């Protein structure tokens, strides 16, 4: 009789380009949460970006090239997990369509799509995590990033895990599910409109009374952090994984060591 524990699932972490470049802490927090959930985590070096900047700019050829690179890099894992609803949504919901009717590549894209998850929904829905071992003293509010919410149905999972963080109080802001105005290249192509939208968001954040803003996507977080800081707000901004992993002792997004 085989008495060994079942082999832990092998997870390939799709770091996402923004986390890789701007906020490695989120990557390490993801690794920690995944390992605590019983996964074996690897980070394939051949990954770069999911391709959304090209995809949403209408550049299909580059998108397909980048997608093929991602598909190849993650083929060997049981699961692919990304600390971003937007990038996970790209792999899960958009890659297969890029290869529609292309036989082998379509099959490979579909296989990748099926095993790809956003970090928090993976922890809750696949690994059955219902609580984390972390503490956070303060009041936080959670912004539902659009792709995670509307493409992947992520809303309840992060709130459930946050409820298990000792000392943490979650308050809901008004219109938590409304876009923050980031939209990838949208925010630099239409800066004035983007600004109007993020101003609505920061007003709602301020009105919530929270001292910390959390979300699951670094693009949205950088946008909201940048606006809050330009407005002189004291609200700290972090990726939800930092708090869930108990790795929230370093400077918040856009905050230096001062």
């Amino acid at each position: 009789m085989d008495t060994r524990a079942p082999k832990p699932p092998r997870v390939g972490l799709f770091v996402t380009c923004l986390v890789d470049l701007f906020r490695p802490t989120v990557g390490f927090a993801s690794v920690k949460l995944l390992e605590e959930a019983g996964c074996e985590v690897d980070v394939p070096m051949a990954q770069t970006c999911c391709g959304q900047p090209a995809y949403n700019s209408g550049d299909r050829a580059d998108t397909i090239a980048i997608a093929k690179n991602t598909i190849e890099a993650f083929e060997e894992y049981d699961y692919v997990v990304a600390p971003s609803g937007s990038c996970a949504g790209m792999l899960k919901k958009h890659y297969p369509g890029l290869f529609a009717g292309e036989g082998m590549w379509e099959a490979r894209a579909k296989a990748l799509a099926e095993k790809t998850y956003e970090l928090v929904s993976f922890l809750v829905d696949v690994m059955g995590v219902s609580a984390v071992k972390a503490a956070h003293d303060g009041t936080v509010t959670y912004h539902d990033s659009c792709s995670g919410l509307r493409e992947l149905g992520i809303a309840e999972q992060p709130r459930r895990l946050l409820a298990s963080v000792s000392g943490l109080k979650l308050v809901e802001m008004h219109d938590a599910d409304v876009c923050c105005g980031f939209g990838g290249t949208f925010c630099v192509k239409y800066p004035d409109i983007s600004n109007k939208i993020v101003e609505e968001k920061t007003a709602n954040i301020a009105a919530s009374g929270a001292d910390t803003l959390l979300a699951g996507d670094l693009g949205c977080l950088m946008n909201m952090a940048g606006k809050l800081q330009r407005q002189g707000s004291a609200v700290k901004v972090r990726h939800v994984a930092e708090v869930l992993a108990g790795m929230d002792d370093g400077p918040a997004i856009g905050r230096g060591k001062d």
Partner: protein
Amino acid sequence: MQITSPAFKENARQALADPQLQKAMLHVRSGFIDKRQHAVDALPEFEALRESARAIKDHTLAHLDIYLEAYEEKVRAAGGHVHWAETAADARRIILDICRAAGARTVTKGKSMITEEIGLNEFLEKEGIRPVETDLGEYIIQLRGEHPSHIIAPAVHLTKDQVEADFRRVHDHLPPARDLSEPESLLGEARRVLRSQYFQADVGITGANFLVAETGSSVIVTNEGNGDLTQILPKVHVVVASIEKIVPTLEDMSQILRVLARSATGQDMSVYTTLSTGPRRPGDPDGPEEYHVVLLDNGRSAMLGTEFQDMLRCIRCGACMNHCPVYHAVGGHAYGWVYPGPMGAVLTPSLMGVDKAGHLPNASTFCGRCEAVCPMKIPLPKMMRHWREREFSRGLNPAVQRYGLGAWAFFARRPRLYRVLTSLAVPALALLGGRRGRFRHLPLARGWTKHRDFPAPERRTFMQQWREREVWKQEARV
């Protein structure tokens, strides 16, 4: 109407700086979103109805020619006339001929986006025929010489105070001291002023929410009853409708009606749902002597069989714009033509060309709320992306964007090179960010730093640190 879609950015800038507009736009958020949600929550089968509505339209579009011909036959059998108009100019000419034959000097109009699309009012005025809008919102913007900023709430860009000022200016025969402080008093006054117009009109022109092939009926849904008076009182009733308004049966119409008002205004049904089938029959108490239907194509048949066909399912409820953060920010006029918001961002390039309307499908965050609320499940973001693809393949987007994207893609396609470059650039940027950890100004990122600070990178890339950790682990094992 003049197309200002190419100047979308400038339009948007002005809209953002317009305090009256910004005040009025708050109403879109408070007035539509919660009401729709309540209506949807109160109907457990709403999702199933959406699916059914989509299936009805998909089926109809797949057999559009058959249903249109069946419809034409029924209209003729009921004593009506059907006119096929390939272009906006064709439609205008047909309508003018009908008006001329009726000796019309005044026409009343029910609310119709199609007559906006073909620029009918300006055209009739030039030809010496006076069009009178009878829908309250349309009446208001006609007084102001404006165009609708929303497909179901044409004057939503105005505050009540602005409307009151317009009424006092135009209705100068009424006592100046009258009370117009409530919306109901404005509606009442418009009703009284319009009442005589219905009897003066020789022709009544309406749009159609549906055309029913089974019966040859045209259907309008309204809340003010103005549409009924427009189509019943004059001698001649002209229905102007685009070809995708057709549904096979009354049952199909009823199914779609169940999602229409709920999605639009949060009502279970609009106050009036009126079917017209041919002219007045012997023994009918009222109705027009002549009944005409002008069926407009204007680029729609060219959308069939393309990635934009799904757009022809649209039933013009306005839910997409009611839920769009970009529409909330800039209002409908910024979009520069008849159809604003997400549905306009897909439809306008189809009808006007992406070279003129290229900004519209680009000015979206792809937040997906439009698709989430669309009763016909139209994948609006996906179709906006299709327009971006067409633009990109035709080289229509700005050179700076193309080069920037090209340079980024060059590295994103080459992981090793990307690693080397980012592992040099990121620590440098982190160093520049200094102790503050962010930038107030950053060359090449002015679009960002104009309105917000730019967070500096933490220190080194994740990949640099991860590799070191792995090497360190390996060594620890040895």
